């Protein structure tokens, strides 16, 4: 008779146990932006709803922001570091291809030897990570998972271009997903549309930068090729705003409706709507498309914080819980969407 393998004992349910966020100190106003692009405070507010963005100074790293948000979320969940069974960091702005941000964050927070890894799903990164955390917990692979969405987008923008840079801010948001006696995370609705791979992304790959750096290294002393062209060589973000807007509103409204349907609830059952904070006009149009009742609180953190990609939803959730403690125990629809193109959505029970 062959040996019988042990398999994990699953947990029946999962839910979000706690949240945390970190907003960096540097406030960038629309007046500041207008020094770099020909625009006005009125134009920017009318097109995007953004009044200010928070950006990190050069001494504040992506890891610093992750550490702050992560520590707050673990403490809010009422857990000790040794109870965290895995760490997932969703980011597209960690400046090392390897090793991961998550391994360093786990070390800083005293979570070693918890499994730790990063995922790249841009503005859907947090919802992708929640999908994974939910699966890990229910499979019994981890009892509690720390999920962090964090970006230092200011390292990857060109302040003088006008498709995306002026929208972007920095920050980190975190949640702890843990085992639960009752259902707290609905089936994830997630996917991709790589046919629109070039709708949002970097100007060019790091390999193109490498060629120039190698040339410069071989050049004779005094050659100033790097100094003169550095700004153009550094890859920065761009987007095709119209294509993205159309997809973000009408395609994502369908996915948001599917998330409600798969959760088995109606829009009127929601306490809050936490869409990715991409642009106030996208948020307004989605609210209209989804016919959300007035009673549903809609996160509009973008006005003060700009678009922080993977950090935007957990930051908005943390703020909502502080400003509206009455939402505790209520249901929130969260949906992230962005470069890939990729999207992810769930209905979650708010801690």
């Amino acid at each position, binding site marked *: 008779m062959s040996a019988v393998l042990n398999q994990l004992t699953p947990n029946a349910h999962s839910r979000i146990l706690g949240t945390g966020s970190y907003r960096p100190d540097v406030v960038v106003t629309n007046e500041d932006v207008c020094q770099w692009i020909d625009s006005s405070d009125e134009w920017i507010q*009318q*097109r995007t709803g953004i009044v200010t963005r928070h950006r990190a100074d050069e001494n504040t790293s992506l890891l610093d922001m992750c550490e702050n948000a992560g520590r707050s979320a673990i403490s809010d969940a009422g857990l000790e570091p040794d109870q965290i069974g895995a760490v997932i960091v969703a980011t597209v702005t960690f400046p090392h291809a390897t090793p991961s941000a998550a391994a360093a964050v786990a070390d800083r927070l005293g979570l070693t030897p918890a499994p730790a890894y990063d995922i790249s799903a841009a503005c859907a990164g947090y919802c992708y990570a929640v999908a994974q955390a939910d699966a890990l917990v229910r499979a019994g692979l981890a009892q509690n998972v720390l999920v962090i969405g964090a970006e230092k987008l200011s390292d990857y923008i060109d302040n003088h271009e006008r498709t995306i840079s002026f929208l972007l801010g920095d920050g980190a948001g975190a949640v702890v997903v843990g085992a639960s006696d009752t259902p707290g995370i609905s089936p994830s609705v997630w996917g991709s549309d790589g046919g629109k791979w070039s709708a949002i992304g970097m100007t060019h790959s790091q390999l193109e930068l490498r060629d120039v750096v190698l040339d410069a290294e071989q050049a004779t002393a005094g050659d100033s090729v790097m100094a003169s062209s550095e700004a153009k060589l550094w890859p920065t973000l761009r987007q*095709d*705003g*119209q*294509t993205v*807007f*159309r997809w973000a*509103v*009408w395609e994502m409204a369908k996915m948001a409706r599917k998330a409600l349907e798969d959760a088995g609830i109606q829009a009127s059952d929601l306490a809050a709507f936490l869409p990715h904070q991409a*642009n106030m*006009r996208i948020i307004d*149009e989605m609210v209209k498309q989804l016919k959300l009742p007035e009673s549903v609180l809609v996160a509009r953190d973008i006005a003060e914080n700009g678009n922080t990609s993977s950090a935007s939803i957990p930051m908005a959730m943390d703020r909502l819980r502080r400003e509206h403690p009455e939402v505790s125990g209520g249901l929130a629809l969260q949906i992230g969407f962005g470069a890939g193109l990729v999207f992810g959505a769930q209905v979650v029970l708010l801690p």
Partner: protein
Amino acid sequence: MASNEEILAGLAEIVNEETGLDEADVQLDKSFTEDLDIDSISMMTIVVNAEEKFDVKIPDEEVKNLKTVGDAVSFIVSAQG
């Protein structure tokens, strides 16, 4: 299939809904951006609503060719044909 006049009237309704502009101001020779002051985001909303109303597909890359109301009417007529 709608006539040119019906398409113009339908577009005027959509533009009015999105921007609050008087339907009578939406004329064939009017430029969406310069005369009607419609921004790129509102333009996309108008395009998607027009697709639904007239049962046509207006691809993203076609939108930038629709400079005037007349361009949009012509495109919708040919797309319906």
